[in-house]
């Protein structure tokens, strides 16, 4: 077992202040403290070598959970074990087993070329010079860093920098890699490249990956299982296929017509998402409305020049899960 989390709960104490000068004055003399729950009763498992997607909107409790798993935060209650160790008791030992990339907090020295950062991290993790060199050679090869290994980090493109960031996080051959938004701001080619190399390292070295990302494509490309957290609570924990099966209930149809006109399809169970002069986008649940009926209904509205039927992408599915959860805050 790579990660075992049981009924983890953590809240923070914050000070509230009413608006204006009077509020500030009152807060000075009579501060109002409030306990804000960050995560509530979270439990999940992650097997060794598994790639687990960890998603949730901003403020859902993702980074609190990750900080607890790294041993940086103590939970209020509950238990957790990472690679057989209790993180907040064995943080220093656990450091050697975990690699991390926090997309918005660079770990490379900005004014120096990546190769210097590689060597300093080698020394930090207790690798000798030869071992560091061998490992750097291997990672340079896998991540294709040859051409900019000696260029100062500030002169690298974001894609090149992120490849170096992920590579340096794997320098000490960790058993678990924590990736927080590794593809933020990258173009599609750079994203694909990062995903490919992470997948390669997962298969090659059996390193487990806990991936947090707002980019549904990252999760889809890398993870076989996904957990969704919202408002501090776990609202989904299952395989990627199950996520799609359970929430991939709607079909989306885009249609374009030859002639201009105002059109609508007044059928029960069919929702018009968008309409323009030449076309429209509708959504329906094929379990309640027949595909035949919808197509012939659309056909009856004019002469079609193009039609596509698609499943909603993961981003929409996640959006639906969040929305459902927001409607029913006790849903788990």
């Amino acid at each position, binding site marked *: 077992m790579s990660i075992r989390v049981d009924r983890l709960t*953590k809240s*923070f*104490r914050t000070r509230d202040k009413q608006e204006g000068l009077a509020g500030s004055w009152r807060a000075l003399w009579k501060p109002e403290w409030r306990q804000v729950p*960050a995560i509530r009763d979270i439990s999940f498992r992650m097997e060794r070598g598994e790639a687990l997607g960890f998603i949730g909107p901003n403020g859902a409790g993702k980074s*609190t959970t990750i*900080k607890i798993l*790294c*041993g*940086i*935060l*103590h939970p209020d209650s509950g238990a957790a074990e990472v690679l057989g160790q209790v993180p*907040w008791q064995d*943080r*220093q*030992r656990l*450091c*050697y*087993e*975990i690699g*991390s990339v*926090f997309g918005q*907090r660079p*770990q490379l*020295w900005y*004014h*120096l070329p990546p190769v*210097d950062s590689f*060597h*300093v991290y*080698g*020394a*930090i*993790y*207790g690798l*000798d010079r030869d071992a560091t060199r061998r490992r750097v050679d291997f990672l340079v090869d896998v991540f294709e860093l040859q051409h900019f290994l000696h260029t*100062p980090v500030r002169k690298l493109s974001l894609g090149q920098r992120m490849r170096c960031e992920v590579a340096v996080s794997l320098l*000490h*051959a960790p058993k678990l890699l924590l990736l927080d938004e590794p593809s933020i701001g990258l173009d599609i080619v750079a994203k694909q490249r990062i995903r490919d190399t992470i997948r390669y390292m997962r298969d090659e070295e059996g390193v487990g990956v806990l991936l947090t990302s707002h980019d549904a494509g990252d999760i889809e490309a890398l993870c076989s299982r996904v957990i969704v957290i919202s408002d501090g609570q776990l609202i989904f924990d299952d395989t990627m296929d199950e996520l799609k099966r359970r929430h991939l209930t709607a079909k989306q149809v885009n249609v374009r017509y030859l002639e201009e006109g105002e059109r609508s399809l007044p059928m029960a169970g069919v929702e018009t998402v968008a309409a323009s002069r030449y076309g429209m986008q509708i959504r329906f649940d094929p379990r309640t409305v027949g595909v035949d009926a919808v197509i012939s209904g659309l056909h009856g509205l004019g002469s079609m020049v193009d039609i596509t039927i698609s499943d909603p992408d993961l981003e929409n599915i996640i959006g639906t899960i969040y929305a459902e959860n927001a409607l029913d805050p006790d849903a788990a």
Partner: protein
Amino acid sequence: MQRTLSTRMLLNRYGALFRMPLLENLAEVGNVVSAVLVMTMFMWVFAMLWQAVFAAQGTDLIAGLTLRHTLWYLLMAELVVLSKPLLAEEISDSIKTGSIAYDLMRPLDFGLFHLSRYAGHVAFRACVNLLAGGVVVWLLVGPPPAWQGLFPAVLALMLSWGLEFCFEALIGLAAFWTEDISAFRWIHQKISFILGGLFLPLDFYPPWLAAVARVLPFASIIYAPGRLFVDPSADRLLSTLALQLGWLVVLGFTFRLLSGRALRRLTINGG
């Protein structure tokens, strides 16, 4: 992965961190050039000022110091202040932005991590500043009054930066309890400048003030190395180093205590 590190590996680890600011300084030559300009300008202004003062007094000796003594003393005092990095800001920024949490995910001791980087920066900047300021002072008033003061001064300088590290780190850690540390920085800086003797040697102060200032840690940081450099008597060497070591124990212990508390506060309360 090895978990019990040998002394050699620990030296490698913190040695590598010490080396990084050296490399950074070499990569950013523009910053180094501007530091050299500041040092050169300061020493030139000091030289003009004190030449005028000595001339106006119509004497070669003020409070037992010649113009040459005074300027070499001031060079050492400036060296202490101008060669250090902005550690307090660095620590307080890492607390405010939360990036301190990620520093803690490394197998590093919080104090030694900052100390090794601080030392690397100081080592490089001090050499450059000493060279730049030394050339100016030498050209204007001649060589140092006592070459045998160099080694004791280097020893005292290392202890003085150790003390300054503790002060700055403590001010940086204050960000755990208060939003803005600039007031602490401001107070520390001004008290250091005045009671440390940055603009004139403490010997020129009224005797009662000089006597008080000499035993305070600010003098151990700014006054001690320069005064030892121009007058390296055995008595002065012993008393200076003893006082510096004493303060280092006090401030080092305070830093350990408070950093331990602050980090516990972070891990338990989330900062």
